[in-house]
């Protein structure tokens, strides 16, 4: 069996730049693959809905350049999943363009550039909704309905290992993936080399966030993972970081509800029987992960629906009487909005910093601070309406009528006597799974030449 030594320099390529020192050490360690995930649903539904990136182009290019040059110099595959934060088609095209441009810039000898898309056609989903195999909701959501589908701006499917393995089989030297399970990018490389599913998926799981599996805490540093004698070995590349039992096991639970099980298209990684062993200062060995194939392949879908255009206003309060009656102040402003715009057809949100701005109803501290800042978010079908809604909802706090207030010249302080345009408001409308006969069906593959 061939070795599968993989380095991962960044847990969300583009979100912040990789650190060159540990990346150089990782490259010097002689990897067989250089791979990273570049997406996340943590950034909220806006980027997917509006088909934009939250990461700056300069940082995306910086990391792709470092990885491409190292991979081509060594002649090993480079693999990227979830291009451009969201993995939409435009983000895949963006990364493919960056790779081609970098290849020209550095006069790299010709290589094969593979890529796949992840956006799902609305009519495919409509047909599924109408079939006898509904689009099932995750995390307590009901099945996807046609009305919710119609409200949704864009849907991506989460690829498993299949499109990555198919492109490796076809000889791709560089792979740019649409939306993908983080762990599948790395698992595909190990599976391509003939390793077992359990170890391959675990290797992917531990590498996906780069140095988040190492300690002391420090992101964007390179880690090296490989499969050796029936176990996964993971090693920190930064001179001051180590992969310990605590850091590696701790990573298994990061950002997921349950530390024992990880679901991907085609099955489930069971980490409940994992055994962790520190085998050298910087390396931990993990044995015992199992992969349980699914009877029917279900692919996760993510979709964002536009709610409307958005404006933001800010107001602050210092009078203790007004602070004690801040809900009445907000209530007054809301009533003025209702009088002007009616009860429905818009959203108006008040976030009261200094009371429960960060946690809302989860806040156990009930005593407000000596001053408050109130953020007003107004969402409406048009920018004009959102702006007027936001001005009304913000400025009317100034005119709130409190019976015993001493200050009668204005109930709030304004740092800005204006409201500010914000990005359009979206919501996660699709967090579901779709059953497929062919795990490649949703992910059209492409292969072209790059370099000279």
């Amino acid at each position, binding site marked *: 069996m061939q070795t599968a030594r993989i380095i991962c320099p960044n847990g969300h390529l583009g979100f912040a730049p990789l650190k060159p020192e540990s990346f150089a050490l990782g490259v010097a360690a002689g990897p067989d693959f250089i791979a990273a995930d570049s997406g996340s*649903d943590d950034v909220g539904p806006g980027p997917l809905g509006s088909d934009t990136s939250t990461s700056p182009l300069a940082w995306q290019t910086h990391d792709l350049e470092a990885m491409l040059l190292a991979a081509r110099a060594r002649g090993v595959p480079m693999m990227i999943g979830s291009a451009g934060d969201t993995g939409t088609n435009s983000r895949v095209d963006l990364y493919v363009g960056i790779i081609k441009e970098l290849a020209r810039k550095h006069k790299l000898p010709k290589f094969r550039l593979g890529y796949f898309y992840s956006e799902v056609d609305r009519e495919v989903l409509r047909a599924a909704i109408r079939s006898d195999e509904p689009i099932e909701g*995750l995390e307590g959501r009901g099945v996807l309905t046609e009305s919710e589908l119609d409200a949704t701006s864009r849907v991506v499917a989460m690829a498993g290992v299949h499109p990555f393995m198919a492109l490796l089989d076809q000889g791709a030297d560089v792979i740019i993936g649409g939306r993908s399970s983080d762990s599948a990018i790395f698992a595909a490389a190990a599976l391509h080399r003939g390793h077992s599913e359990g170890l391959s998926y675990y290797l992917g799981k531990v590498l996906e966030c780069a140095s988040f599996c190492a300690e002391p805490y420090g992101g964007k540093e390179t880690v090296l993972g490989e499969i050796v004698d029936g176990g996964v070995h993971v090693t920190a590349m930064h001179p001051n970081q180590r992969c310990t039992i605590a850091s590696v096991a701790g990573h298994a*639970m990061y950002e997921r509800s349950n530390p024992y099980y990880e679901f991907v298209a085609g099955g489930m990684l069971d980490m409940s029987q994992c055994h*962790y062993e520190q085998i050298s200062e910087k390396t931990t060995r993990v044995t015992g992960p199992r992969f349980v194939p699914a009877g029917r392949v279900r692919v996760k879908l993510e979709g964002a629906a536009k709610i409307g255009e958005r404006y933001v206003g800010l107001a602050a309060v210092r009078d203790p009487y007004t602070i004690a009656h801040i809900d009445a102040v907000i209530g007054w402003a809301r009533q003025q909005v209702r009088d002007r715009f009616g009860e429905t057809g818009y959203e108006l949100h008040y976030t009261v910093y200094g009371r429960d701005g960060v946690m809302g109803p989860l806040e156990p501290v009930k005593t407000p601070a000596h001053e408050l800042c109130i953020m007003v978010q107004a969402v409406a079908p048009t920018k004009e309406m959102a702006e007027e809604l936001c001005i009304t909802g913000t400025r009317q706090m100034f005119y709130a009528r409190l019976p015993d207030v001493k200050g009668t010249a204005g109930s709030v302080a304004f740092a800005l006597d204006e409201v500010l345009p914000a990005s359009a408001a979206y919501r996660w409308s699709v967090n579901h799974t779709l059953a497929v006969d062919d795990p490649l069906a949703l992910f059209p593959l492409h292969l072209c030449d790059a370099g000279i």
Partner: protein
Amino acid sequence: MQTLKLSELAKTIRSKNAGVDRITFDIIFRDARTYEAVRRSGALSREAVLALYGLPESRLTDFVEFEPALAIKFTIARLRPSGSPGDPDIFGAQQYAPLLDVLVNLPDNEAIQPAA
């Protein structure tokens, strides 16, 4: 009897999105002895977490004692998905703060030096 704050006993106390509909909380300890002592104290139980955050039982989706990482972990359902307008914490990254001051009663035979 010794009473310490959770922030004096844990190495890491954090919260973060687990997908778009949930927030997960990790409390990680430096050594097995502290982990065991806190676990046995009952200060971090399903009931304690529900009371601390004022949540109905239905919103606590997972509660796991994860020995390999010396961690206690729980997950709650959001009322609206992350990043919806009005959501003040898109990453769910600042929801752990009330855990810092949770008081943990330790019997004298489990006396533990608070971490720095």
